[in-house]
């Protein structure tokens, strides 16, 4: 398991302090604020920023679930959620499950698994996950 240290996220989190950070917080958009907060948690979890995850490498990522898609009955059951950590998005797919208690939008999650790239999107199949904190 070779994790990429989340140095960049930590630096930006530290950069948010002081007068300049204050000014930036005033002027930045909601999305920027959210990204910044999420990057901070990534650092605290000791996870890899999704942006830095490479394909075919195991990685540990942490962030909030932005969307959760429930598949209808019939067809192969699967549960898909998008994890966002402020730097990028990764799709978490649990095959053979239709529903996992606790996997719901807004939930803070730490997931570990093999990162693959499909159509330019990062996907992690059947990751080991840990539900962190409330939504």
């Amino acid at each position, binding site marked *: 398991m070779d994790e990429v240290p989340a140095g960049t996220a930590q630096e930006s989190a530290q950069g948010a302090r002081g007068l300049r950070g204050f000014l930036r917080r005033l002027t930045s958009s909601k999305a920027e604020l959210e990204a910044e907060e999420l990057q901070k948690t990534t650092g605290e979890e000791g996870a890899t920023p999704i942006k830095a995850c490479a394909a075919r490498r195991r990685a540990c990522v942490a962030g909030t679930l932005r969307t959760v*898609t429930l598949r209808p009955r019939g067809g192969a059951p699967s549960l898909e959620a998008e994890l966002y950590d402020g730097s990028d998005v990764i799709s978490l797919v649990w095959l053979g499950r239709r529903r996992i208690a606790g996997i*719901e939008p*807004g939930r803070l999650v730490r997931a570990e698994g093999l990162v693959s790239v499909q159509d330019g999107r990062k996907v992690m199949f059947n990751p080991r996950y840990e539900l962190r904190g409330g939504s």
Partner: protein
Amino acid sequence: MKQAVLQMPKRFLVGRPLRTGQMGETLLPKKLALPVFCSDPLSSVAYATEEILLALSLGGLAMFYLSWWVGAGVVFLLLVVTASYRQTCHAYPNGGGAYTVSRANLGENASLVAASALLIDYVLTVAVSVAAGVANIVSAFPALGRHAVLISLVLIAVLAVMNLRGVRESGTAFAIPTYGFVASVFLMLAVGLVRVLAGHGPTAESAAFGVHATHSTMGAAAVLLALRAFAQGCTALTGVEAVSNGVPNFKPPKSRNAATTLTIMGLLAVTMFGGITVLALAAHVHIADNPAQLVGAPQGYEQKTVIAQLGAAVFGHGSVFFFLAQAFTAAILVLAANTAFNGFPILASILGGDGYLPRQFARRGDRLVFSNGIVILSLLAGALVWAFDASTTRLIQLYIIGVFVSFTLSQSGMVRHWGDELRRLTDPAARRSIHRSRAINLVGALLTGLVLVIVLLTKFMHGAWIVVVTMPLVFLMMKGIQRHYRRVAAELEPGDDGVPLPSRIHAVVLVSKVHTPTLRAVAFARATRPNTLTALSVATSQEEADRLERAWAERDIPVPLTILDSPYRDITGPVLDYVTRIRLRSPRDVVCVFIPEYVVGRWWEHLLHNQSAFRLKARLLFRTGVMVTSVPWQLGSAEAALARQGEGAEFAGRTRVRPGAA
């Protein structure tokens, strides 16, 4: 029913809508064309003399001897302009307004200058004519003096309604006042002439008053004053171009009939103007710009119009003929405004068609007239009358600049036109006649140009600067509108290979709860067979999301449900992000967003429903490659509203198969 009730006042005022096929050519014989097109130039006779005298009064009584010369100058100019416009009638049988002529011969910018001059002038024509008409009414009934502005506004409104009804009826309505005015003026002139010849000429009520000079009359100042009087007198020329605009409305032979009408008009105007000026001098009508200038006038004396003073002097104050003459004068002055109501909407429609004004001006209304132009014209004229307190003297300062700009441009255009003809023709007889026409137009162009300069110089400080400022603004506005239309047209022009089919369609149905409108939207979205289909919901609270999830699973809806997290509890943002992500992932695909919407029947229900849907829709429409489909759900109140309107009841009854059927 409700709609019918709302329509009733309009129907009452404007009349039944006409079918397009009913547009039939209403061709005018000469005797009807004269009142329709010439009421403006004929009516300006009623105030042209007065304006000359007013301008001269600044120099005191001594200056009045100049009115001969000023009057003669105006008559000469009127003859030249009439002769020049006769040429236009022959050259442009399809109607040769200043705009058309200068567009054909002088290019776009010149034509737009002419158009802006004309547009402003039409507005002023309405304002001046109505104000002058009201001034005559007030002369007959001084008690009405306080309500002059109100009366003017009412008259403008009446004119607007008449014109909205269409000209077909108004043709005959114009004949009576116009011919009545001509007859009464001639009667007045004849009686006055006989009395002068008999040795006891008429004497105006103001003959005994002196006029206190406020301006120096030495040397150059006298010349300047005379020029100013001349510029004022030139109001007699306004409206001459109406005939050349209206050539297509004449009975054939169109050009000849139009030219003849123009000649008759010119001769009538010259005779009446000359006669009134002579009579005014013979009767010693003394009027002054400012009543305080009058020496020896009784306390509280209200100045009357020249034509009212003459009428009183000739027929006797309070006699039937005096009131008849006043009535006709007022009537023709108000109707003269109609010349503008003929001209403005047509010019605006041509400009609208050419893309210099909003395109709505080119659309015909219920009664086949250019309603938008009529409405705008009356609004502008009303505002002008209101701003200038319905004062003819102040309004007239703005007036004739536009006329002479368009005269000059149209005459110069005609000179060009004949030049081109000469290059084309070889037949010596035809060339000779063209040479003559060109000479006439050249004289016309030079003279009107000269007068334009005089008018500008003498009137600039008295209010004409407003027009001088407004004209370029109108010009720039038209240029700007055209640039915009061009840019849009270029943008909308399809490329050589047309528009490619979107490679795939991603459908997104917005869902808030599982209820009938949602289910119907989902059913409809499935029936359109998109490549991918997702139901989308925004979780503003966890409980709500859970409830939706459960209901979705219970109903066993065969569409994946995606629930978006909204950390800041807004609905629009996450949906927009989601749609953007689909677009980013597959830029050549199209996203189709289905939004279930309630249709409500009462205004306050709008406040209770659809708020987030509306906001979302407004934002989504700005995204490229995103189609928004409304899936309406008619609430009970909407159906009731439809039934109230009458026409929809049957439709609603017959199309309702089963409530909520998709």
